[in-house]
């Protein structure tokens, strides 16, 4: 990719965004659309400034739960995948339950988890719910990756009398890295979705993350604040995605096809 086309990839989306905002602002003013239907971008910005303290507090709560849930999803997903790769019996016994956890809609189990954990520990409940949503892509991708190690290399390891541990650490985990990272990129976004859904389900008072700010602002018909909270959520999601994409690229750029840029 040459310099000018790389520049275009940045400039074009930004120009589109600015044009869209101008159109939005102009329409709201021209047609006199009322604020509780569609606030103008300037009004949203104003609300963001006015509510900066409380919104940032909520952002921090949502961010913290998302990050911890994601981290635990990585540990749990990779850990279970390693366990599965070591024993077919364990995989056969447990994998169906991992699938059940994954396919059951999170919003449906949320009330149950909240009751079990207790309304005094809402944050723990949020964490569990976000984890349930986030761990599966890492588990299934890593499992696939661990099983995809080159069979000739496996033979070579056997030939040199490698231990199970050596095969795992020197061969299977490095082979699985690209798969693992692809799973993590999906899970990062899912952890945020899980947190937001769980916050909605947890409802009033005890949890004050961004999702709760949205519900609260909706109830008060404070639509500019609702948009402001929404904006922060999107920014959070975008940051997580690009952060993980960057980690993926920097880990794989030396050797993996997916991260190598070819001359044309």
């Amino acid at each position, binding site marked *: 990719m040459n310099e000018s086309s790389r520049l275009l990839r940045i400039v074009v989306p930004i120009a589109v965004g600015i044009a869209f905002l101008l159109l939005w602002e102009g329409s709201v003013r021209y047609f006199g659309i009322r604020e509780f239907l569609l606030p103008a971008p300037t009004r949203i910005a104003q609300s963001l400034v006015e509510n900066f303290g409380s919104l940032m507090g909520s952002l921090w709560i949502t961010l913290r739960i998302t990050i911890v849930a994601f981290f635990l999803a990585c540990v749990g997903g990779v850990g279970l995948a390693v366990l599965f790769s070591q024993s077919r019996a364990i995989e056969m016994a447990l994998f169906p339950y991992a699938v059940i956890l994954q396919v059951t809609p999170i919003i449906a189990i949320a009330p149950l988890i909240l009751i079990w954990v207790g309304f005094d520990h809402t944050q723990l409940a949020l964490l569990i719910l976000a984890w349930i949503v986030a761990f599966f892509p890492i588990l299934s991708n890593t499992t696939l990756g661990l099983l995809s190690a*080159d069979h*000739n*290399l496996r*033979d*070579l*390891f*056997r*030939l*040199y*009398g*490698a231990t199970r541990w*050596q095969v795992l650490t*020197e*061969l299977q985990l*490095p082979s699985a*890295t690209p798969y693992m990272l692809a799973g993590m990129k999906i899970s990062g976004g899912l952890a945020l979705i899980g947190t937001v859904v769980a916050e909605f389900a947890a409802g009033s008072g005890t949890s004050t993350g961004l999702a709760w700010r949205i519900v609260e602002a909706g109830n008060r018909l404070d639509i500019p604040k609702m948009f402001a909270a929404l904006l922060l959520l999107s920014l959070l999601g975008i940051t997580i995605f690009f952060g993980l994409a960057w980690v993926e690229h920097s880990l794989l750029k*030396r*050797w*993996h096809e997916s991260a*190598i840029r070819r001359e044309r």
Partner: protein
Amino acid sequence: MSAAPLIELSGVAKTYDSGTLALTGVDAKIERGSFVSLVGPSGCGKSTLLRMIAGLIEPSAGAIAWPAAGGERPTDIGFVFQDATLMPWARVIDNIYLPLKLKGIAKKDAEPRIMEALSRVGLSDFAQSFPRELSGGMKMRVSIARALVTQPPVLLMDEPFAALDEFTREKLDDDLLELWASQKWTVIFVTHSVYESVYLSERVLVMGARPGRILQDIAIEAPSPRGRAFRESAAFVGQCAKISAALREGAKG
């Protein structure tokens, strides 16, 4: 030769679970320091035989003994696959370090041996490269260096140069001969190329398919050292013709 052979195959056979008879009644002796090729059509079980010698596949019948190595199969056999089979995430130096690492040798202590193996295959300048930065022939050299780094008593090669272009292949053939002449390890070389087998080996075991078996054991007469002159000599062509005839005979029966 009076000394005990390095490897002794007696009545070796392999039947796969599917019922396919891959190999039957293989008897052969491989002398220490010899260069032996296994030549045959696809499906004659030559790779299976090589993997059985390496201990990667268990024979269904018969025995593989290592009289000159005290009866037991050595644990540091060198094996070269048809693909270079390198770890793409590791630098060349770490790929070659692998066999020593698996044996628990610290990298600091292994480094002189790694660099020696690298220089023997002419890749001293590429220790820090990643496999993807190398050509097919260079990857194959790394693979050979990795097999050599343990100073193995025997080097097993499974159609190592089959995927390379002819020019690279001839170059690697010559390099392999040179290495073999200077080190005198035992080499068992699987190939489907009659020319390559005659050019490289002291002995060619001609194999036939369905079921896989050894048809003929042919000694190769060649000047030492071998070179371009041998490749183009009448003696070379004659011996190739002899092996081709043995292969055709096997295909008929």
